[in-house]
């Protein structure tokens, strides 16, 4: 492959501009870090750190950056379709942009944001010192970042995938998508997916085995419960993605016939495999958000969560049903009335446990004492807007009616009405809520609230018109349309909404800047007067989390201890065993990143030695004797004194 073809995407002014933007931004960041001599500090304190809190912060940082990339892609799409026959983007670039928008937002924004908050909060909520496998946790992060980097590099070198985030065969096959563009899709998801699978295993083990003494199943905070279920889903759903992507790679790069049009291949097999993973994936990003809403609504109503048991049960039922509904993504492929009927029923049934949760949240507020903080606003905004997403979901679940909604903007509106008020509002609620746990100050409430309103207004103005456009025959993924369709006014409205939405997201960044400069520093580890154990320790949290692991006797132990004036940390401080930091996950991921990069370009003579190096990294890990280190009791006591002195 000649260099000219390799860099041919750069011939497009728009892409050249973006590339220059990424380059300038990247150089500015690198120059800044170099100027302030922060490289060693970053490497020692973050890149090689196995501390779950720092890994969580890195995940969230990357998620925010990718949110902006995905957001700009969304804005470009809305700009292109704002007026009929627009010429901002041509068909191929529009196709690339909606493909990467989908992949980015689900896998490189929602997932890392969820996993980031999980990392920050879960070990603290269950009173643990770290996750079960701290180094694996760091490896998960770096593998995720490598996958993310691959997708972003594709924009500049070789071209981005352009067959939609679902990449249906035969379209995504080598016959209709020649070249390497869609190899990027397979490998970027593959490598990030393996990282996520490791996270799943890690957190299942952590939550089941490492809870504080006395924290029995029905005393686990709701966010942790939701994440336990989420991670179980990850563990059982992601291997399906792994297999699907391997088959895709084999078909595209080695001429196998799984999804081929000849020799017995079956194109819809891909769609089935994709959605067997893809539908649970939706619940992977939504259940933790449900958990966050449970925490936030209880905290800011100053009341315990209503119907705790049914909250847990409903999530378990949702997780089971999530594996039994995948075929509703292609009712229109012509399976009979029976199959469509069964999948309609299972799909609609999901509304029942979801409704139970909705009513429990509402009843939690009854007799409460509601304060309208930024996280609470997101939780309150979630209820009315998500319900629209939910009821349109039931409408889509009806197979017959879906024959008219399928592949239209109605569907696009529906899943944005689920994912934005559900996942995004949940994550933003969690982000504002746990920010003072990550750092020792709160984000500015005023800017936070203005941001919330801009996002709510912008979101509805952007997406509500799409319900109507869909019913008027507007298919999704169309880069342009003619005047005569009559879509123009609503499409323009949608574009205006998108501008407001982007401004709302921009205010989040401004809030970080503003709050770093002006927000008062917390003197107390519990700024919200909250209920669960993460608030029992200091902010920012010391490396060892808890000087003395708290003993738990009931749900919301910390809340009742506060009320009764009990000290959760009574006892003698002992030496604390902690895992060592390690550079291996970073460097192993770099090697694997190079490996996949050359694999994408079919350069197997380079892939083989890199694969050997990867095995050597594993061997190194196997032979390494790493007993971790101890923080001595007197050091812990000193830290505790210092932290308390701050109070």
């Amino acid at each position, binding site marked *: 492959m000649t260099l000219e073809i390799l860099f041919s995407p750069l011939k497009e002014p728009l892409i050249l501009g973006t590339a220059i933007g990424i380059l300038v931004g990247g150089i500015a960041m690198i120059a800044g870090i170099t100027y302030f001599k922060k490289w060693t500090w970053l490497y020692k304190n973050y890149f090689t750190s196995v501390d779950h809190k720092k890994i969580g912060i890195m995940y969230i940082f990357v998620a925010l950056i990718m949110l902006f990339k995905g957001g700009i892609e969304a804005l470009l799409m809305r700009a292109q379709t704002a007026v009929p026959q627009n010429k901002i983007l041509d068909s191929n670039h529009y196709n690339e942009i909606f493909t990467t928008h989908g992949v980015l937002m689900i896998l490189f924004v929602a997932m890392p944001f969820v996993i980031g908050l999980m990392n920050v909060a879960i070990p603290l909520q269950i009173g643990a010192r770290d996750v079960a496998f701290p180094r694996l946790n760091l490896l998960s992060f770096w593998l995720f970042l490598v996958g993310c980097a691959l997708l972003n590099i594709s924009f500049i070198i070789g071209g981005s995938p352009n067959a939609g985030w679902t990449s249906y065969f035969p379209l995504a096959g080598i016959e209709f998508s020649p070249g390497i563009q869609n190899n990027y899709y397979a490998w970027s998801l593959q490598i990030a997916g393996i990282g996520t699978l490791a996270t799943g295993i890690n957190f299942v083990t952590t939550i089941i085995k490492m809870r504080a003494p006395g924290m029995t199943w029905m005393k686990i905070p709701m966010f942790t419960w939701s994440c336990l279920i989420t991670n179980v889903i990850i563990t059982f759903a992601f291997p399906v993605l792994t297999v699907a992507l391997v088959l895709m790679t084999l078909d595209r790069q080695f001429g196998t016939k799984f999804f081929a049009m000849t020799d017995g291949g079956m194109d819809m097999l891909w769609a089935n495999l994709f959605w067997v993973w893809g539908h649970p994936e939706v619940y992977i990003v939504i259940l933790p958000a449900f958990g966050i809403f449970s925490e936030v609504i209880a905290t800011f109503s100053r009341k315990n969560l209503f119907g705790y048991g049914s909250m847990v049960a409903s999530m378990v039922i949702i997780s089971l049903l999530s594996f039994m509904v995948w075929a509703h993504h292609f009712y*229109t492929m012509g399976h009979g009335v029976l199959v469509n009927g069964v999948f309609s029923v299972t799909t609609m049934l999901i509304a029942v446990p979801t409704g139970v949760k909705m*009513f429990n949240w509402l009843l939690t507020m009854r007799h*409460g004492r509601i304060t309208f903080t930024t996280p609470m606003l997101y939780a309150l905004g979630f209820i009315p807007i998500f319900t629209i997403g939910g009821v349109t979901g039931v409408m889509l679940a009806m197979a017959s009616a879906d024959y008219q909604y399928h592949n239209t903007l109605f569907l696009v509106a529906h899943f944005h009405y689920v994912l934005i008020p559900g996942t995004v509002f949940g994550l933003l609620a969690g982000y504002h809520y746990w920010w003072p746990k990550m750092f020792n100050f709160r984000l500015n409430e005023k800017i936070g609230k203005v941001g919330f309103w801009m996002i709510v207004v912008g979101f509805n103005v952007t997406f509500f018109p799409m319900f109507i456009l869909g019913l008027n025959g507007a298919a999704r993924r169309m880069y342009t349309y003619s005047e005569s369709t009559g879509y123009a006014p609503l499409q323009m409205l949608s574009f205006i909404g998108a501008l407001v939405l982007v401004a709302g997201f921009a205010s989040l960044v401004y809030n970080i800047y503003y709050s770093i400069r002006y927000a008062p520093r917390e003197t107390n580890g519990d700024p919200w007067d909250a209920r669960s154990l993460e608030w029992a320790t200091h902010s920012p949290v010391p490396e060892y989390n808890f000087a003395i692991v708290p003993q738990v006797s009931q749900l919301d132990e910390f809340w009742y201890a506060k009320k009764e004036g009990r000290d959760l940390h009574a006892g003698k401080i002992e030496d604390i065993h902690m895992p060592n930091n390690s550079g291996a996950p970073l460097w192993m991921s770099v090697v694997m990143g190079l490996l996949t990069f050359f694999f994408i370009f079919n350069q197997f003579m380079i892939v083989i030695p890199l694969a050997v190096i990867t095995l050597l990294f594993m061997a190194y890990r196997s032979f390494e004797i790493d007993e971790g280190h101890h923080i001595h009791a007197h050091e812990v006591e000193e830290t505790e004194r210092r932290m308390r002195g701050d109070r």
Partner: protein
Amino acid sequence: MRKKLLTMPIVAALLAIVLSGCEPLMVLNPKGPNAETLSNTIILSIITMAVILLVVYLLLFFMLKNYRASKMGADYEPPHEAGNHKLEIIWTVIPILIVSFLSVVTIYTTDKVEKKPEGYGNKEALVIYASSSEWKWHFSYPEEGIETVNYAMIPTDRPIEFRLYSFGTIASFWVPQLAGQKYAMADMLTTIHLAADHEGDYWGRNSNFNGEGFADQEFTVTATKQKDFDSWVKDVKASEPALTEKEFDKLLKPSVVGRSSYSSTHLSFSPAPMDHKDMMKADKYTESKKGSKTSDQTEHDMDDMDEMDK
């Protein structure tokens, strides 16, 4: 503030309806029995869902109005409430009833639109093969022996059976005012039953993304009286060229083309794949033949076609 929160979607909805003008939305403006069933289903589900939305909105409004901190007095301390079994049973059972109701509606209507539409007496369905290739539609009329590209003529007041398949990527055949969608795929045949009650031009398209020319993969279905349809067939038969294999191969190449008509179909030299149901039979067929190696699909397809021609 919270009022704004509640009214936001409603305002957006009103605004959108106003902006979209008075023209009825395509999906809710059916011109045949299939689309009409779907339109009624959709309207029924919208009404049901509106009730649910209303309940949730009223509850939310009630909670926010009555239990905000500023109303509760400085020393109010919320009580501990574990749950309420009666309430929990109510909000589990009622949704289950709603879901059951909608399930029945779904199965009934799905079955209805998947069958030959009723109410047209003993009229036999007109069979039209609609096949997709990058980025166009080919309509073959086996009985009449004619073929068109990117437009189809159908008689009104008669059941029509579109048999769909694809020469490449998956496409979704959609004429919103006549019927819901169905995929056209390379390795099996799918069917759409519909009928048009009114004369007119109905816009249709492929709604499933399939590459660069996707946005342009549109077609028109024109419904006319049987008499006009017959004379159109006669016209095409008399004045249009035959569709040769060479010409057809040229047509199949990825491109966006205009309309054209031919006085013969491609089915003779490039038969359609098997029906989904027949394929199930074919699986058994291969099984019984196991050991003899051949399960050549095309051969089987030819048999199928012969049967059809009879």
